[in-house]
């Protein structure tokens, strides 16, 4: 699977000291992302899993497979919270 990553477009968010604070307008729930998740939030919009894994692999000098596995795990967690989605249509 190599879907395109998107933020939930319904959410309001701001970067505070390098980390994301996100509000869900429907229920006013506040989410705070840690540094890693904030980086993903910032840099992943419109990218595919492979593209982002490649970028993380290069920037953090980790194996591409490791980066991708970590990324999948993180995106699954963000998806559970309805913060980010991996679009199934963009499988490549």
């Amino acid at each position: 699977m190599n879907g395109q990553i998107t933020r939930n477009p319904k959410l309001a968010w701001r970067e505070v000291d390098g980390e994301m604070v996100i509000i869900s307008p429907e229920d006013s729930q506040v989410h705070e992302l840690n540094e890693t998740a904030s980086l993903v939030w910032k840099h992943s919009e419109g990218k595919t899993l492979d593209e982002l894994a490649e970028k993380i692999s290069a920037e953090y000098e980790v194996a591409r497979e490791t980066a991708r596995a970590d990324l999948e795990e993180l995106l699954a967690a963000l998806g559970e919270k309805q913060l980010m989605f991996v679009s199934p249509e963009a499988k490549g």
Partner: protein
Amino acid sequence: MEPLDNCRPLQISIGSVPLSLFIRDEALLEPAARRYREFAHDSENGFPIVLKKTEARTPESGEFSYLLDDAGLILRSQGAEFHGVRHEYALDSLLRILLTMVLLPQRGFLLHGATVVRDGRAYIFFGRSGAGKSTVASLSPKGSVLTDEISLLRYSNGCWQAHGTPFWGEFRAAGQNRLVPVAGLYLLEQASQERVETLDARQALRALLPCVLFFANEKPAHETLLRTLLGLIEQIPCHRLHFRRNAEFWRVVAA
């Protein structure tokens, strides 16, 4: 929004927002006039609010609406309708909701907090119900409390100002309609010893968000709120105040 014919509005101003309340029901007008007497205003161009006895209608596209038990608010850019208001408490609640919406684009908001003036500057003690807002107010000199329950903060004339509000808590003061530059924000936390802890931007935002009165459920409104709060936090120091519910807290606050 058509004002009522032959109905002289009750003119008030809260947070420098002039409001014209068209209340036909005498049984409601009299307590409302008493409740907001400190906030009486002579502007004839206040934002019109028409009170109607009917149940709230279905809002049209572009209107903000909010239902509160039997009463309801419908807001659009030219004015507001309050429906089904039977007592001053419902009127008070709808006014708070209305103000949150009207103030938002003007870099203003309402906060669950007491505002106390000391040496010409406003100290905002905020927190959820039971945090100690009324205690702080009751421990402060008479005449220094702008509100013991709902603080109104607004950026104007190049700085953040705290406005008095008529929204009372246990302290039952009538409020004072004046504005004072904000010195600091203090999240109340009961403790065994007075201590002030400075919060960073994220901690401050985390502390403030649950205490802001906010009723919109749309993304742009929340984006504006976040921008407004971060603007505040950039300029005004935010702290956690550990206090013992006695007047000793001023020792660490005004230090």
